[in-house]
């Protein structure tokens, strides 16, 4: 079943109407070509209107779309010969984060990402893409391996957040994330992070420190979910739409705030409409960024990474 978002309802309705007329033409042998043509033109305009004027809340829904491409989808279309590797060697294997080795246009690389499920069963297995500490520790293990063998690292960010559970706290969710932030800061190989869906708080950042932060057009990145912010700030989760606007969580906002390095456009209607074409849009960006990072020596790269984070944030001062 197709999942329809509220704001695209008019588009879907019109599309259905056209389909109906087409069926009528065939079955009843009535010539409606003229009408269909008019409606199709109108549809094209409507699609353009709807999908190019997305509000922050629309993008939140887009980022959470059940059919939105996941890390594994992108891996299949962007890399060759991906081999998944499991386990943190300490406690277990977290299916909410996947990782392994592959080739990117012939170059050996390490790929890591949050992994959501696409249906209920898959989502339960993946814990809805919400990692436990062992997920972050597996990610770090694979990153250290990449560093040892001089492989660039790609990470794909797509999580509501790190899992807020009892066991996660007992095993040191905070420490696992914190350690990754610090270790990623010092990785000697190029690190490129791509926010493909929801960038949920510390759970996203836990595999999100790198030389380049890219973001798909309809992805979001925020310190807390709009619902969470609304329930804390306005004491009512129903203010989520308002929170989504105030918190500045879209790719355009992050571009304005100089937090992301590149905004990767999505195909009209969102990445889920055509994964193959979306991957084609993303691939040259990854190539370009990898080439520019590979041309730097390690010290320069680390220095630039340090500077990049140093410059995030604004403040006032009354310098004497």
């Amino acid at each position, binding site marked *: 079943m197709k999942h329809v978002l509220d704001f695209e309802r008019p588009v879907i309705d019109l599309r259905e109407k056209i389909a109906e007329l087409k069926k009528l033409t065939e079955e009843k042998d009535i010539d409606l070509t003229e009408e269909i043509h008019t409606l199709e033109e109108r549809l094209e305009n409507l699609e353009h209107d709807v999908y190019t004027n997305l509000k922050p809340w629309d993008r939140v829904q887009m980022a959470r779309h059940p059919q939105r491409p996941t890390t594994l989808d992108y891996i299949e279309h962007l890399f060759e010969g991906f081999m998944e590797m499991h386990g943190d060697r300490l406690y277990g294997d977290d299916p909410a984060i996947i990782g392994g080795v592959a080739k990117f246009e012939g170059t050996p690389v390490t790929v890591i990402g949050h992994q959501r499920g696409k249906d209920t069963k898959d989502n339960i297995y993946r814990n809805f893409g919400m990692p436990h500490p062992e997920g972050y520790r597996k990610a770090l293990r694979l990153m250290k391996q990449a560093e040892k063998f001089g492989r660039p690292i790609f990470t794909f960010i797509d999580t509501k957040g790190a899992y807020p559970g009892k066991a996660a706290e007992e095993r040191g969710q905070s420490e696992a994330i914190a350690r990754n932030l610090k270790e990623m800061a010092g990785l000697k190989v190029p690190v490129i992070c791509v926010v493909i869906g929801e960038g949920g708080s510390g759970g996203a950042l836990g595999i999100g420190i790198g030389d380049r932060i890219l973001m798909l057009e309809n992805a979001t990145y925020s310190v807390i979910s709009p619902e969470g912010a609304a329930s804390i700030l306005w004491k009512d989760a129903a203010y989520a739409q308002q929170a989504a606007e105030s918190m500045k969580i879209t790719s355009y906002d992050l571009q304005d705030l100089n937090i992301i390095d590149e905004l990767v456009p999505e195909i009209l209607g969102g990445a889920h409409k055509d994964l193959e074409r979306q991957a084609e849009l993303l691939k040259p960006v990854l190539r370009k960024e990898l080439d520019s990072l590979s041309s730097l020596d390690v010290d320069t790269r680390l220095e630039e990474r340090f500077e990049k984070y*140093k410059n995030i944030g604004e403040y006032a001062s*009354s310098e004497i």
Partner: protein
Amino acid sequence: MFKDMFGKKKHYKSTPNKQSKKEVPEGLMQKCTGCGKIFYRKEIYRNLFVCPHCDYHMTITAYERVEQLVDNGSFEEWNEDIQTKNILEFPHYQEKIEKDKEKTNMNEAIVTGKATIDGEAAAIAVMDSNFRMGSMGAVVGEKIARAVEEARIQSLPFIIFTASGGARMQEGVVSLMQMGKTSVALERHSRAGLLFVSVMTHPTTGGVSASFASLGDYNFAEPRALIGFAGRRIIEQTIREKLPKDFQTSEFLLEHGQLDQVIHRHELRAVLGSLLDIHSTGGETDEART
């Protein structure tokens, strides 16, 4: 045992009600936030704001912490003039900041600088939960990052006292990125072979616990502090079960291998002094480190 610590209030029927509390001259008496007993403020002060009755470690301001900790007169404050901007133009944020500035007499939720402890120099940062719950926005991140970087340049150890509810929501993703900013600075400090000590105090949660607070070469905490990643209510809603009372306390973290020690406030200065001493002498030279 633990339930006694928070449940005490009802055992003391003599706890003054709101009206009689007003009769207590401002600043003369202070009530323990743990057990509710009233003490002369002087007595509490002399006891480093630890309750003489129940040993509860009360919240203290950043400057009180500095005073307790460092050699008298040795503190030199850094970057005290950096002030908050409403980066996202978040509704009512500036008013809240102004209110807390007035309340605390501070510009932001952290004080940084340089001092000596038992004669050993260190860069220190102390968070203050009285200012917007000690939450981390761009200024807190900037002041920590600058202090860490200055420590690296001066080859100083860095000691932080955390007290924070986490990231500051009104600064959105900018506050989230301060986790990255501080961690990246600490990585550099660490790569230079320098010492970083984190002392978690009540409360240390969310993005602060999931960044610099957990990154010490030594991670300590004061007794009975709340320390954790996710909020108790969120976890209970997620897993649909009641959490044990001592969940996410210092003692709980120690038991689960997340802390080096839980240190009583009376012992803090001595422990830090000894640790600085251990790290000031001997050891391999920089060249021997990789």
